[in-house]
């Protein structure tokens, strides 16, 4: 039993203890603390294990053949790839757990925090196990454990009917994923007995092409439904707002990444890569997800739904990187392929960092303002300055602004896309520039969207009493946000070092073995062929330097500031109703992309009875029609309903009818016996 193994045991023990303690807690308040204690201990264990494995590269392996022996037993195997994601789970899990202590205070009278504690720790345990699982049953077990527990976390606020509906959507989609996963894995298994990943790895090369393709397609949609790629994203914008914010942070920051993990694990590790169209599919779906995600986000005024849609966008970006990587790898451009994959993995880390941060920030805001609607916030930068600062950092990072981490990973992905022209086959190569265009548009729109998100909810004057009376949240919550904000900055400035670490992880996957990136100069991110480089750190230094110089220059002549009212065409007093609203902010883009949104507008003006020049009230409502969802899901549900009604008819209540069924069945059976001979 080596250290890493012990750390894993500590992890599992911590989570288990947290779950049990929370259930047995004497009071709701105690349950809150026990939950966090167990979770933090578990996360520390997980971090230690992951760190050891990442550093040494020695996989931790353990197997418990007697547990569910019939299904192949429980097999644990933590390699570098898994450890990367385990570190992700543990890190974000730790912060979310601590944050949760005071965040869940408001749930004390609403819903059972004992159940919550059980599910929260179970959720963390499930996610950690997914990254350690080394045979089919263990993986699926952990996968479902994660799904079930997260379902209960989503419906924590179960008194609200919408929340329950959201939970239902989520459960349905995630179970749909399992339904695809099961045959996918079993197709890769050589025999009923041999279900460890090692067996699969050895066996998959011998599979016929059709089977391999089937496995890939199944894996793509199964993990895609978890990762939230279009069109399987429907559950994200429902479940994320419904869940408590630190749970949303975990789900959006980590859980959907496990979909990416599964995809990488199956596609590149177990199946060791495939034809160009696999990557092509990833690339295409990635582009669509990125663009649609951000476009729908732009129309959202529910802060958490907006963030949820951005998760769709970022998953898209990650998929683009993976797709580019796998295509380039197939075309023999292995160094550039590594850039793409590294970009994707790096973006996975970054997204976990800033999306976690943003959800925690949103959580603090929602806790203070008791609303998720941005139109009722505003002015929070004055009442909650630190939260605002953290949220700003997160926004800048997710908008891929240098020198923060989002920029670094998107830069790498851009570079891998620019390598498209080197691909000999033209029909594949042309895809790349288009991807560049869409990715650029995506990041531009993301910037616009977060100007809206931050500007409307934090700046200017409070738009409601709640917002006016908001106070800075509890220090523990702020501290966690600070940590993540720091993470965004550090990951950005130290990107070259992170990339070097990631390239080791990539190197540990047999498919990419021996393709570690050439050691680039400390401060620079470089494309292996030296065609481009960038140094976030130096950028930051220059930026601050120039800013300071400018400040000094102004100070030389003395900077005098006179506070007055905002100037507004001679208005006497300024009221929040005169501020630009979120919907107004998004209006131009809604017009531009009207084709996609199919907005329904409803303008009703009531005029004064005396003269129609005196307007009494104007109400304007506009909704975006999610026709994509309708197109995909309505037929299915309608079909099921129709079938169900047909089946109901069978049970008509007449005993003669029932007997007739029996006779008919008998005749059919006899006939089949006849036919079979």
């Amino acid at each position: 039993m080596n250290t890493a193994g012990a750390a894993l045991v500590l992890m599992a023990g911590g989570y288990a203890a947290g779950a049990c303690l929370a259930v047995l807690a004497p009071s709701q308040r105690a349950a809150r603390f026990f939950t966090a204690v167990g979770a933090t201990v578990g996360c520390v264990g997980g971090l230690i294990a992951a760190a050891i494995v990442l550093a040494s590269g020695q996989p931790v392996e353990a197997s418990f053949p007697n547990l569910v022996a019939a299904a192949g037993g429980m097999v644990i195997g933590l390699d570098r790839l898994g450890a990367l994601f385990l570190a992700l789970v543990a890190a974000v899990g730790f912060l979310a757990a601590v944050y949760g202590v005071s965040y869940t205070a408001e749930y004390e009278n609403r819903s059972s925090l004992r159940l919550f504690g059980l599910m929260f720790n179970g959720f963390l345990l499930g996610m950690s196990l997914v990254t350690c699982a080394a045979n089919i049953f263990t993986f699926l077990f952990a996968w479902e454990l994660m799904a079930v527990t997260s379902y209960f976390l989503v419906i924590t606020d179960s008194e609200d009917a919408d929340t329950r509906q959201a939970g239902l959507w989520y459960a349905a989609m995630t179970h749909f994923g399992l339904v695809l996963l099961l045959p996918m894995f079993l197709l890769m298994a050589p025999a009923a007995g041999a279900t460890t990943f090692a067996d699969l790895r050895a066996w998959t090369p011998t599979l016929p092409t059709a089977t391999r393709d089937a496995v890939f397609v199944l894996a793509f949609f199964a993990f895609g439904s978890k990762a939230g790629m279009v069109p399987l994203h429907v559950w994200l914008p429902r479940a994320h707002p419904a869940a408590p914010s630190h749970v949303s942070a975990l789900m959006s920051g980590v859980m959907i990444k496990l979909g990416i993990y599964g995809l990488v694990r199956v596609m590149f590790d177990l199946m060791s890569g495939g034809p160009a169209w696999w990557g092509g599919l990833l690339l295409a779906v990635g582009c669509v997800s990125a663009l649609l995600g951000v476009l729908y986000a732009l129309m959202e005024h529910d802060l958490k739904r907006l963030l949820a849609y951005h998760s769709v966008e970022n998953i898209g970006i990650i998929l683009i990187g993976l797709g580019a990587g796998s295509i380039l790898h197939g075309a023999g451009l292995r160094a550039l392929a590594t850039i793409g994959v590294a970009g994707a993995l790096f973006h996975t880390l970054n997204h976990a960092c800033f999306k976690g941060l943003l959800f925690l920030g949103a959580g603090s805001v929602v806790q203070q303002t008791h609303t998720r609607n941005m139109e009722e916030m505003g002015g929070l930068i004055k009442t909650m300055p630190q939260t605002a600062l953290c949220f700003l950092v997160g926004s800048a990072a997710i908008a891929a602004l240098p020198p923060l981490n989002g920029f670094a990973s998107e830069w790498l992905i851009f570079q891998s896309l620019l390598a498209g022209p080197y691909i000999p086959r033209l029909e594949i190569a042309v895809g790349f520039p288009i991807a560049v265009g869409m990715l650029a548009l995506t990041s531009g729109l993301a910037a616009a969207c977060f100007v809206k998100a931050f500007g409307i909810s934090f700046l200017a004057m409070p738009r409601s009493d709640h917002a006016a009376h908001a106070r800075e949240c509890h220090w523990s919550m702020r501290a966690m946000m600070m940590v993540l904000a720091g993470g965004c900055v550090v990951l950005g400035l130290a990107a070259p070092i992170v990339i070097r670490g990631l390239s080791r992880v990539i190197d540990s996957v047999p498919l990419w073995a021996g393709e570690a990136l050439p050691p680039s100069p400390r401060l620079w991110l470089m494309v292996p062929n030296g065609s481009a480089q960038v140094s976030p750190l130096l950028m930051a230094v220059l930026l601050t330097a120039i800013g300071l110089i400018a400040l000094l220059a102004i100070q030389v002549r003395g900077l005098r500031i006179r506070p007055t009212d905002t100037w507004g065409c001679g208005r006497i007093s300024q009221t929040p109703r005169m501020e630009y609203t979120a919907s107004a902010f998004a209006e131009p883009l809604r017009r531009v992309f009207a084709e996609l949104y199919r907005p329904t507008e409803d303008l009703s003006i009531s005029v004064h009875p005396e003269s129609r020049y005196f307007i009494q009230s104007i109400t304007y409502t506009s909704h975006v029609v999610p026709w994509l969802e309708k197109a995909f899901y309505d037929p299915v549900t309608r079909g099921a309903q129709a079938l169900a009604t047909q089946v109901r008819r069978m049970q008509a209540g007449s005993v003669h009818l029932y007997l007739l069924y029996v006779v008919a069945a008998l005749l059919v059976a006899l006939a089949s016996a006849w036919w079979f001979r």
Partner: protein
Amino acid sequence: MIHYVMIFVQTFVAVALAPALVGFIRWMKARLQGRRGAAPWQPYLELWKLLGKEAVVSHTASWLFHVSPFVVFGTSVVVASLVPLVAAPADPLIIGDLFAVVYLLLLGTFFLALAGLDTGSPFGGMGASREMTVVALTEPTVAMSIVALALSAGSTNFGQIIDRTIAEPSMALGPGHLLAFAALFIVTLAETGRLPVDNPATHLELTMIHEAMVLEYSGPYLALLEWGAALKLLVFLALAANLFIPWGIAVTLSPLALAIGLVSFIAKLAILAIAVAVLETRVAKLRLFRVPELLSASFVLALIAVMSTFLAR
């Protein structure tokens, strides 16, 4: 080492020249419109005056309002330091490539837009919303023209692009190159708030974009913003000039080459400035919701550019 000194120097030159460029364009326009117009160095005086004035700041504004001007100015300067103006040294480890430029400018715009929202004035919000729309829609075009350049040069580093273009003049006249140039020029107009996208000469019109955002600014802050905007314009023009018509730019650091580089640089800028001025006198401002059409047109140009370079390979 000498490279970095050179970069520092040329950045300084750019920062110094920027107001003159704006002034020159205004003067040129006045001439074209049959007015005498203010002298080209007028902007320097304005900046000096503004720097001396006190800043009037709204009650509702937060610290962000105070920070933004520095961010905007800073990004412009950093960008200027990344872009080859007078000389394009091939080898050194530059701080960033074309993507870095694009995203740095985006950073500036991001903060400017936030500052616009910060005061809670309807104009600020209006400007911010429109500015972000325009910027978002220009991004793909910029990226595409970058691809077009990178395709031919096999790199997104300025030095390599320029070397390559100088090495193969034929490429500069290729359809891909020209189309990309056109696309980038349109983007320049959009990003720097010129006609037909935005009218830099107006205040308090409901059609304004950039000016609406900075409406609440005054004094030194306004000076920084103006200067930054001017620098941005210069950088864009310089990009258009040097990436597509690189001849004359100094590839070695010999005094002669540098002299030629400086002269040719100013000459190119002057030509482009005149072009802008002529254009601004010729065309009327587009309706806001026609702008996306213009930008999509430029995107199509860039796309065709890429494809043609592809097929030309």
